[in-house]
């Protein structure tokens, strides 16, 4: 039980007085899982003849892959890469396992292997898509999980660094599957050569930023698990051989192995190869972790990417408190506030416009007034001028006839008629 941050999140830690019994829950889960059975999907990738079928048959001690049939020389080699799968229901100690092994014949066998990884990646993604589609169904009671839980990648025992095709494949797939690279045909290399080879492989993997599956220990594991994990980690990548045949050792015992003129290499001898470690990691200790990683990490990443790319937008409003009345009230208030805001805005705009018009009119008023004044002064001026002229004219000349007065009036009129 994880310790919580006290009362901050509202969860309190309580101590119990007696035995309640919910600690039996894991056993119930266990029983249910055993009844339901498990499934595990493994993919093997490597060039033809590198030992894929033999290793699978050896790992599960069952002939999952039949013997390779002898094809005549005229048979056309596979063009490109095929992806085929075999399923087997196997049982051990009452635990049922539906094992599916996906084979990839043709990988790396052509002259041009540039796109050899593509059909494999498409297959992996289509399995994710199938699962996604099932999750979105209305009736989800029966979901079939055939997502790839792990890919075992077979590396040729050259002794040098990784080949171009190895690097290309792993870079393309490491974010979509749990990648477990192994050194195939480990009986070709001496112990010293193997050590150097593994170091070169890991250097290449780290250099190219390739993520491979590694067992990690966290603080909850007991010391035995921690040391087991560390041992497994020290042997990665595993150098393995496989054999379906039994051979007789000098002391008479029969073991699974390969007989050479110079000796017998035993499959299950840890000093001869890392088969035991591979089996341990794959089946005995980390099968659950592989499935978990596929479900929680790899699948989720794929799903997120896919949905985002399809245009889904994460709407976080969905997650607030949902109470219909409150929501209606909120909506009403929001609407009202909006209306008020609009009103205020409009008023403000109106006011502004009115002011503008007023000031404009005022301006023109002033203008007119000024003009009026101007004209008046001009007029006054003219009048006074004319008055003067009149006086002068009267002074210089005798009393004028009424007819002579008229022209000046007429003149005056002319000036004023300018209005």
């Amino acid at each position, binding site marked *: 039980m994880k310790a919580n941050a006290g009362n901050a999140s509202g969860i309190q830690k309580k101590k119990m007085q007696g035995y309640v019994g919910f600690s039996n829950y894991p056993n119930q889960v266990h029983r249910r899982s055993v009844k339901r059975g498990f499934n595990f999907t493994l993919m093997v990738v490597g060039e033809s003849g590198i030992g894929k079928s033999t290793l699978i048959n050896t790992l599960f001690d069952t002939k999952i892959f039949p013997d390779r049939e002898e*094809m005549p020389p005229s048979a056309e080699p596979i063009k490109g890469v095929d992806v085929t799968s075999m399923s087997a229901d196997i049982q051990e100690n009452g635990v049922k396992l539906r094992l599916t092994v996906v084979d990839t014949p043709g990988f790396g066998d052509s*002259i041009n292997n540039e796109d050899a990884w593509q059909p494999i990646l498409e297959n992996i993604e289509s399995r994710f898509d199938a699962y996604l589609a099932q999750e979105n169904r209305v009736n989800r009671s029966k979901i079939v999980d055939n997502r790839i839980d792990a890919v075992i990648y077979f590396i040729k025992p*050259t002794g*040098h660094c990784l*080949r*171009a095709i190895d690097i*290309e494949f792993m870079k393309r797939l490491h974010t979509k599957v749990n990648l477990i690279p192994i050194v195939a045909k480990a009986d070709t290399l001496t112990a010293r050569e193997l050590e150097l080879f593994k170091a070169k492989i890991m250097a290449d993997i780290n250099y190219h930023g390739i993520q491979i599956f590694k067992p990690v220990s966290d603080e909850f594991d007991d010391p035995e698990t921690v040391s087991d994990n560390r041992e497994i980690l020290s042997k990665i990548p595993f150098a393995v051989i496989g054999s379906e045949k039994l051979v007789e050792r000098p002391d008479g015992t029969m073991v699974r192995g390969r007989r050479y003129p110079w*000796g*017998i*290499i035993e499959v299950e001898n840890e000093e001869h190869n890392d088969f035991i470690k591979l089996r341990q990691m794959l089946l005995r200790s980390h099968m659950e972790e592989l499935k978990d990683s596929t479900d929680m990490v790899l699948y989720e990443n794929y799903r997120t990417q896919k949905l985002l790319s399809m245009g889904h937008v994460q709407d976080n409003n969905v997650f607030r408190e949902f109470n219909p009345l409150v929501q209606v009230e909120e909506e009403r208030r929001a609407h009202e506030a909006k209306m008020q805001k609009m009103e205020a805005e409009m008023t403000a705009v109106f006011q502004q416009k009115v002011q503008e018009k007023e000031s404009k009119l005022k301006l023109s008023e002033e203008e007119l007034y000024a003009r009026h004044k101007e004209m008046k002064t001009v007029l006054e001026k003219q009048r006074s001028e004319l008055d003067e002229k009149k006086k002068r004219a009267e002074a210089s000349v005798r009393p004028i006839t009424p007819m002579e007065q008229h022209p000046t009036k007429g003149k005056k009129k002319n000036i004023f008629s300018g209005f």
Partner: protein
Amino acid sequence: MSAPANDSQDYVGFDTITQQMERKFLKRGFNFNVILVGESGMGKSTLVNSIFSSHLVDSQGRRTAQEVIRKTTEISPVTQTLEENGVRVRLTIIDTPGFGDQCNNEGCWVPVIKYIKDQHAAYLERELKPQRDRVINDTRVHACLYFLNPGSRGLRPLDVEVLKRLTEVTNVIPVIAKSDSMTVEERTVFKRRIKEELVFHRIAVYPYPSEEDGEEDRLLNSSIRDLVPFAVVGSEEIIDVNGTPVRGRRHGWGVINIFDEAHSDFVHLRNFMLRTHLSDLIEVTSQRHYEQFRTSQLRQIKELRAQQAAAAASGGIMGSMPQQAPPQVPAIHQSMA
């Protein structure tokens, strides 16, 4: 017809020609050129160094992550002079790093074929010179060790393409270098399979059957052809096995002695290449592959000249016939490659 005794009057003495030739050989020495064709990590360098019991070539494989993967096949010849019992050989090993190492290996054989043809061309050019050297330095490739992938069903598509082209220009000897990953049964099945496929694709590997062969030659050749492809293990290390030094490999489950016939065909390969068929390899290169090349080249030159003459005559160019210049051998053959 019984041969008279060496010191009698009737003894002519032309049978000493073999000794005369030997002396000539000792003085002059000879060239032997071998090309290694196979992907990186197949064991080419180790095998060659084992055959000649000396560190002649370094492995050109990628050693660190920072090294870039080669984008094309490179040709890197290394020449050394070896001497054994007064006999000198100018040995050239031509490695082909980058062959078959990329994702897309289309055309990765082109630099190899070109190199082999270039050597034929160079030899032809020197032969056709009005003033020839007395001894032409023979850079023609006498043998090609082609490295097969152990464990494959048979020949891979790349193998078929390359072998078809290689066998047209040089003597090809197919080998499986890291054969310690195959049990005896697997080896037998694989060899049978390869032989079937070679016949099916009409790929002629060395040694070639020939009518000139005497009875014992024929037996020898057929026993060698039985072994093809040679399943060998190479080693540059001498390890200690119960006090005796052994050239081999030490595993946790046993020690491989490369000279042990039960462990590998190494001894057969070495004897075949050096002890019995060395001069034959050189001779066949000269008589078969070089002659083929020469014939096709000269024919092409003849055609070209005829075309030029026709063009000159019809084009109305005044007077002069095309010059009797030395033929542009390299230029022509490049268009063939």
